[in-house]
């Protein structure tokens, strides 16, 4: 009986969301009176023993280079085998692109009930009940898992990482990996930009920017804040910005610490993708824009005047 936490890595480095699940899994293990163990696939350069800082006791590594790249079938095999070998009863993933590729598959293989998009620690006082976001963040559901093995995938940015002291024991796990059926032809990582789903701060633009040629002021603000950039659906549909920046019910769902919306009206479908942001700032010239109802801070004004001032004031505050 243990809690097994899947730690995602990319190019040898542990992903930010993995520290969140490590913290979450360790808290859950303490709650259940058991140990938190981690599973790492592939070879890594980061020091795995450091996962001890987040409460992990043992890190199991299947150090096979084939696993440096995500392959849903191979990962499912290896993770499900690890769960069986280690006798884990709870398996935790992050609900990221990687988690979405494998967590449900692992659950199906293990005949385990799964809650994806979990937003809090399970209530284990009477059974095993996990809270998750539903209706694209417009509500929560409390879901009971009845199977012996339980799988949870945690919404990124919904649980604070807590780093303390401690070193985890690192142990290697021998599991046959097999050959991938999927061939990866090319990988195109967006270099130098903050990935939208991982960003602490997101600056987003809507039709109020009038055209792609006006994005400079938004990009300047984003650069000053080390923020990722996003946009509303019509902006992506008109090809003013790339599709992967489209946030909302039918685009990417995000939950940054700070979401700054420029010239976005705040349609219900847009809000559904951003309403889990901790702090929302809206700049819109229309005082009746529905976004103000969902905002924490706002300026009713012309974004073409306000945004450059905002960038300047942030520079000033930082003494630049």
């Amino acid at each position, binding site marked *: 009986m243990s809690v097994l936490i899947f730690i995602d890595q990319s190019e040898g480095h542990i992903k930010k969301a993995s520290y969140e699940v490590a913290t979450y899994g360790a808290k859950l293990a303490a709650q259940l009176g058991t140990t938190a163990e981690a599973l790492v696939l592939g070879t890594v350069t980061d020091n795995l023993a450091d996962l001890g800082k987040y409460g992990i006791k043992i890190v199991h590594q299947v150090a096979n280079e084939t696993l440096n790249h995500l392959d849903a079938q191979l990962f499912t095999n290896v993770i499900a085998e690890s769960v069986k070998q280690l006798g884990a009863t709870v398996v935790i993933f992050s609900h990221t692109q990687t988690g979405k590729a494998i967590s449900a*598959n692992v659950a199906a293989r293990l005949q385990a009930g799964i809650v994806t998009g979990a937003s809090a620690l399970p209530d284990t006082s009477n059974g095993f009940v996990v809270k998750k976001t539903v209706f*694209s963040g417009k509500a929560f559901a409390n879901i009971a898992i009845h199977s012996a093995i339980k799988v949870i995938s945690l919404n990124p940015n919904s649980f604070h990482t807590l780093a303390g002291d401690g070193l985890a024991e690192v142990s290697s796990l021998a599991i046959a990996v097999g050959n991938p059926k999927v061939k990866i032809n090319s990988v195109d990582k967006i270099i130098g930009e903050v990935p939208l*789903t991982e960003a602490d701060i997101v600056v987003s633009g809507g039709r109020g920017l009038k055209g792609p040629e006006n994005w400079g002021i938004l990009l300047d603000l984003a650069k000053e804040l080390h923020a990722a950039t996003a946009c509303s659906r019509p902006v992506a549909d008109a090809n003013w910005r790339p599709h992967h920046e489209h946030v909302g019910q039918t685009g990417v769902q995000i939950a940054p610490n700070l979401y700054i919306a420029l010239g976005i009206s705040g349609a219900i479908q847009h809000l559904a993708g951003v309403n889990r942001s901790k702090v929302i700032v809206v700049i819109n010239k229309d005082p009746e824009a529905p976004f103000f109802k969902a905002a924490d801070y706002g300026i009713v004004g012309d974004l073409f005047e306000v945004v450059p001032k905002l960038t300047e004031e942030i520079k000033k505050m930082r003494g630049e």
Partner: protein
Amino acid sequence: MKILVCISKTPDTTARIAFTDNNTQFDENGVQWIINPYDEWYSLVRAIELKEKDPATVIHLITVGGPDCDPVIRKALALGGDEAIRVNAPAKDSYYVAAQIAEIARQEKYDIIFTGKEAIDFNGSAIGGMVAELTDTPYISLATKFELTGNTALISREIEGGEETDEVALPVVVSCQKGMAEQRIPNMRGIMAARTKPLKVVEPAAIDALTSILSFELPPAKAGVKLVSPDNVAELVRLLHEEAKAI
């Protein structure tokens, strides 16, 4: 080529979200039902495009649900697709639904199974991966592009911090999102044709759900917006720094 498109019935994107029976049931009062947008705009339309290129392609639609799903599945048939299968059972949980779909898929032997990247009601993102696993088929999640050359699929997909292009021999299970295709509006001919397309109702296989919903909650209301004058942008920066501690 034989394609299965998984269809889920969801509340319209503007539906009021409320609950009844002591917060244990979704309040369906006044709710308009639609085809889950990811299933409609991306999976179904991409399947239709593939059939337009290769008319020998057969498209099946599948949904797990009661007779209340029929209008939505007919609407999907009006967009395209040759026949629909409805597994006549409530969608108890993702495992239950996926296992029912896998049951049919094992009999019908599809070359491609398309699902949406998630349903906009329960946001599970689980059916595709489960169906892939239960039918022992490769799974490509979050696909933004899908091309076929003979029996090989070239698929672009979102990964963390970017995109990759994969090559896989069929069969394959693919979860679809923006980029795959453009939204289409059903035309009169499609709507008429859909009336006579077969909608097969089959009884569910004996499968146990592994989870159950106990209750729902609405998020706490926002405290209300603090408005700052456009002539005092410095004040917004101060608030974000000192009060919200967000910058």
